[in-house]
């Protein structure tokens, strides 16, 4: 897991923003969303999630506020800012292009071998 962390660093922030764009939630909620959404393929260190959240706050992409959960637990809720929404769109597009390009390159490489 620590091997994949450097790769995940930028990606993690993007995933958090994506999650928050659907619904404001707390750190635990994000952890669960990521594990379930990837069917367990992506397991992220919870500490990394909270650090990423603080980085996002520092960039004013995300803001936080203490609130109550459904079963009356006190938790810090995170919300995407307007600026964050704009950035998410832009970064998601960049990410998709990147993935496509890498995928295309990998596909052509295997063709050459066969």
């Amino acid at each position, binding site marked *: 897991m620590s091997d994949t962390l450097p790769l995940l660093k930028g990606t993690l922030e993007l995933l958090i923003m994506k999650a928050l764009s659907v619904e404001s939630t707390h750190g*635990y909620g994000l952890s669960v969303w990521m594990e379930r959404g990837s069917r367990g393929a992506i397991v992220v260190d*919870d500490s990394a999630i*909270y650090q990423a959240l*603080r980085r996002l706050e520092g960039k004013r992409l995300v803001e936080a506020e203490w609130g109550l959960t459904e079963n009356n637990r006190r938790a*810090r809720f995170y919300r995407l800012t307007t600026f964050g929404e704009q950035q998410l769109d832009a970064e998601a597009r960049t990410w998709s292009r990147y993935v496509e390009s890498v995928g295309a390159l990998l596909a052509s490489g295997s063709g050459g071998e066969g």
Partner: protein
Amino acid sequence: MKRRRLRLPAVRGGRRREAEEELEAHVQLHQDDLIAAGYDPQEARRIASERLGDRDETRRALERAARERDRRLVGFERLEGLRRDISVALRRMVHRPGHSALGVGIFAFGIALTTTMFTVVDGVLLRPLPFPEADRLVALYSVPEEGEAFPWVSMGNWYDWAAENRTLAATAIHSQEPIDMTVSDVGEPFVAPAVRVHGPFFETLGIPLIHGAVPDSAAVGRGEALVVVSEPFWRTALGGAGLSDLTLTLDGARYGVSGVVQSGYEHPEGTDVWLPRPARPQLGMMRNNINFRAIGRLRDDVALEQARLDLTTIADGIRRSDPAGIYSWGVEVRPLTDDLVGDARPYLLLLMGAVGLVLLIACVNLAALGFARGTDRADEVELRLALGAGRVRIVRQLLAEELTLAVIGGAVGVLLAWLGTEMLVGAVGEVVPRGGSVRFDGRVALFGAVAALASGAAAGLPPALMVSGGTRGGGGRRVVGHRRDLPGTVLVAGEVALTVLLVTGGTLLYLNLSAIGSRSLGWEPSGLAALQVSLTDPAYRGDPTRVLAYWDEVDRTLAASPEVEAVGFATWAPTTGGGSGFVDVRGDAEPEGGAGYRVVGGAYFDALEIPLAQGRGFDARDQADTEPVVLVSQAMADEFWPGVSPLGQRVRSPSMEAFFFGGEAPWRTIVGVVGDVRHFGYDSDPQGTMYVPHMQMAGMATSMTATVRLRGAPSADALDRLRREVQSIDPSLAVRASFFEDRLRNLLAERRLVLLLLGVFAAAGLLLASLGVYSVISHAVARRGREIAIRSALGAGRGRVARSVVVGAMRWVGIGTAIGLVAAFAARGSVTDLLVDVGATDPRAYVVAALFLGFVTLCAAAVPAVRASRVDPLVGLRSD
């Protein structure tokens, strides 16, 4: 909800609690989920805790991330604060367009003047010379036994310095000033400024050539006739032709053109032709022919002082081995830039100081306006302070307003300076040394920007601090509010003081120039024309009969013209250069002193209106084969024959005449004494002078100026007619015509320019000071509207109310004036060097400055005061 609210960053303890609470919440939420999935509560708690890992380490990581987050947020906060301050400032500016325009205008005015002046100072004093490694270039000066070093050196001395020094990488000499040489192979003959250079002149300076090469020293040594020319000369006079078979006729001799100097690298400034000549040792009395200027390039590891010591040691050796050399006492080494700039430096520094004062006055003015505005806003500021706004915030906001004005004004000012520089270069280019290197560029713009910000801060900070300081009297309604106006009034007094300083300096320079201009010259320039001719055609060389015949012809031709009253000739007429010779009256080897030496002919003294004090003038008796005679000036008579009649005494000038008389100068009998003249114009002092008839000194009569006194009013047409008549006598010669009055005026151009600029700065200061008085009084009467209305209603006459306001203001103007006069007296040293005939303590300047300031500010104060006194009492009471 979308709007971001101000959030203060969490303190350290806050960040820790935040992390702890958040992690605890995480564990609890996880635990809840596990319980819901059927886990035992304690088991759930254990799993949740384990999943999170080491709590302390995680918490610390979170704290670190939070610290970084808060740091960034504070940065954002500042940026946003700045944006908010600027947008508030802009909004306020738009709300008060008149006031804003005034502020921007004052900033623009101050910055434009300062930046334009800086452009000149930068170009002349600060910018390095264009040559490579120009900081290593030096000028070598001779140091006489007594007195100050002077920039002229002899070839004999320089030859030894060049051969023996160990501190210079290269050194060369060139003739003092460009000499005029006649170019006669392209169209009508004209005169080109030329210098003779000895030694590796071009290599020493590192002058780049665009074509050809510098003649090598072997060719120069063989005496090959080769010259180097300037790029503009090559393009215009020589049509930019190829160098291979290009020749040039100078003073009747043909030269090959070996190279072309790149434009902008001419040294001395304005030279068109360089004639490389061999360097030869010269001994004995020849060492005293100080006809050259020396330049050098220091070796890489050598300091100026080392070179001075090195060369002075060599000079000591010369003095011991060759005692006849009287200028060999030492060598002074100066940076070449200083040598070129010369006496322009004190002028420029004075002007830069003056323009700095103008900018300071502008800042004080803006600060006074700021106070006035600040007191208007005191209530608003008090309210904001009461509501908990920090003092820093308020100072920042007030400062931002002033800085915004400064930035806009500065931008306009720099733009104006850019235009102003174009204008100024036209005016100073000819007058100031290195005028050609004055230009507007990024470095000047940067200066303008820094000056704008600094003056914005200087003008904005004091009122901002005062208004936010809460030191004012109680709020609410005031009937009488004198105290509030105090800071503004004090500032206006300061402004007045600075302006007095400027006006006093300007008046002193004005008095000085008019005193110089009204000096008696000892000769009469008005209606006097100069026609300068050099007999450069080889036909005249070594043929005195022909030379004298030429001047005879010129004399007859001009005298025949009905426009001409008198014609004379002189080797050096006033303002056309001059020579001095050693004077021998006793006949021993040691000359007794020196005097100006002129060869004159025709009705020279009549034409110049120089009076004859004793004896007779030259006439038909004085021929080449008659007794050698001489006239001396009164100063020379007083110096050499004090208390004795000089008539009949004998005198000779070995240094001037020995060469023409086979090595032995003839004794001349004094036949008359003439009045003294200021030979080099108003700025110069009369000098003892001897006059020799040209019939007896034909060898030097090859280059003379015909001095022509006109009957009618001088006109360009008349001058041109005379020039053409002389030109037609020998079309191969170049004839230059001018009026002596114009020549004199050009000699004062530097003084006149300085005066003009100082006058502009003083006027600017005066304008700003009156503006300050006007606006402070306007504000005062506006705020005291109720008081004035009550007083009027109670029966005080209108005049009385107005008077009380004006008197209050003028008291401060008076204090400012007094301070200014004292300051001007204290700073008199800055102009002393520039004054002649007028003392720096001349009371007229101080009286003029005081009266002028008093009058102008009184007018500025009266306008708003009178207007206020006309207000209907009822209207005045209802307002506010």
